[in-house]
């Protein structure tokens, strides 16, 4: 209980802290921003639309390919301690982020931010299943793959920052329904999946050789 309270309080407080930091940081120079929507309507007819940056788009796509390449190279040529601790999780993290981005399209259609809710719940189910599995098989690469799915895929699929922003912006009862369903639902899913496996099959120690 105090854990959930502390996490939620930290999330909301840091959201305001970030906005405070933004208020004291200097602004970016206007000339560096080529196509910001300007206030006067005369000038706005001539400026470019925000979407016209094909060069930057291409750069983004190249960066994605390069990132995967570098991560794969690092995976095969680095010491094994790093590999399992850091490189394997980051190989699994982009699919989580992409899935969350795809789900976030659902947010606009309902009063309830369904996309973020679904992303969080799917991540919790996957993590509960993987965590339960990790207690039952106990060694080697499979164990580290389980760790990577937890830290990489589930960690990037689920989000607290969007959750905090949406909680802050929602009005009335919907706010409390959203907090309640997310937090209670997450705990119940952990209980059902992780606790269920534990009670029916029992747990061994984690990841022993």
């Amino acid at each position, binding site marked *: 209980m105090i854990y959930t309270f502390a996490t939620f309080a930290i999330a909301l407080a840091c959201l305001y802290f970030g906005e405070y930091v933004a208020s004291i940081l200097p602004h970016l120079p206007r000339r560096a921003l080529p196509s910001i929507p300007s206030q006067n309507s005369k000038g706005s007819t001539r400026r470019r639309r*925000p979407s016209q940056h094909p060069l930057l788009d291409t750069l983004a796509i190249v960066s994605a390919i390069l990132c995967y390449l570098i991560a794969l190279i690092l995976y095969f040529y680095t010491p094994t301690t790093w590999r399992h601790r850091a490189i394997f999780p980051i190989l699994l993290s982009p699919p989580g982020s992409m899935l969350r981005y795809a789900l976030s399209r659902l947010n606009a259609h309902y009063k309830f931010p369904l996309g973020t809710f679904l992303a969080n719940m799917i991540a919790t189910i996957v993590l509960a299943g993987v965590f339960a599995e990790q207690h039952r098989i106990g060694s080697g690469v499979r164990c580290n793959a389980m760790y990577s799915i937890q830290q990489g895929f589930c960690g990037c699929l689920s989000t607290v920052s969007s959750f905090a922003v949406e909680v802050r912006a929602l009005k009335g009862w919907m706010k409390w329904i959203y907090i309640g369903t997310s937090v209670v639902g997450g705990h119940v899913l952990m209980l059902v999946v992780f606790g269920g496996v534990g009670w029916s099959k029992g747990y061994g120690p984690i990841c022993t050789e």
Partner: protein
Amino acid sequence: MTTRGSQDGSSSEQAIDTEYDDPSTSSRSQRGNIEPPPEDMTHYRLLAHYSILVLASMAGCLVRLGLTAMGTYAGASIFPIAWSQGVGCAIMGLALARKKELIFWPPIFTFWTTGVAASITTFSTWMEEGYLAFADFNGYRRSGFYDVSHSQWKTADDRLSTV
């Protein structure tokens, strides 16, 4: 906003552009600030949105792992994942406050909010550690009241095999 667009003649372009600072949709855009920004989403641009997430989520995941490792030490007064949650939410707040400046190229806004901030924070670990505290999974000797109120955590590093 629509009157501005119709005055200028190029109504569709203007309607798309001026959605950024339309006061009538401010409450909605406040709620859905993490949504992809309203724009004419071409396939190429959508691909850019998705591919910028690769770099963002890799960086965010590394930051989370690093912060968790830095927060895990003997005698830690706060649970390690709290650092990640705080840093991620601070980045989210910073990016939202500077949305007007970041939006010149919409994927960069996606990069900071949907990518970096949301990858650093994690809801699933929150739920997992909360559940473990409720269930007293680590078997601390304490009365039932403390299962509900207090919490203990087992660090993620303990789960890593030493291969």
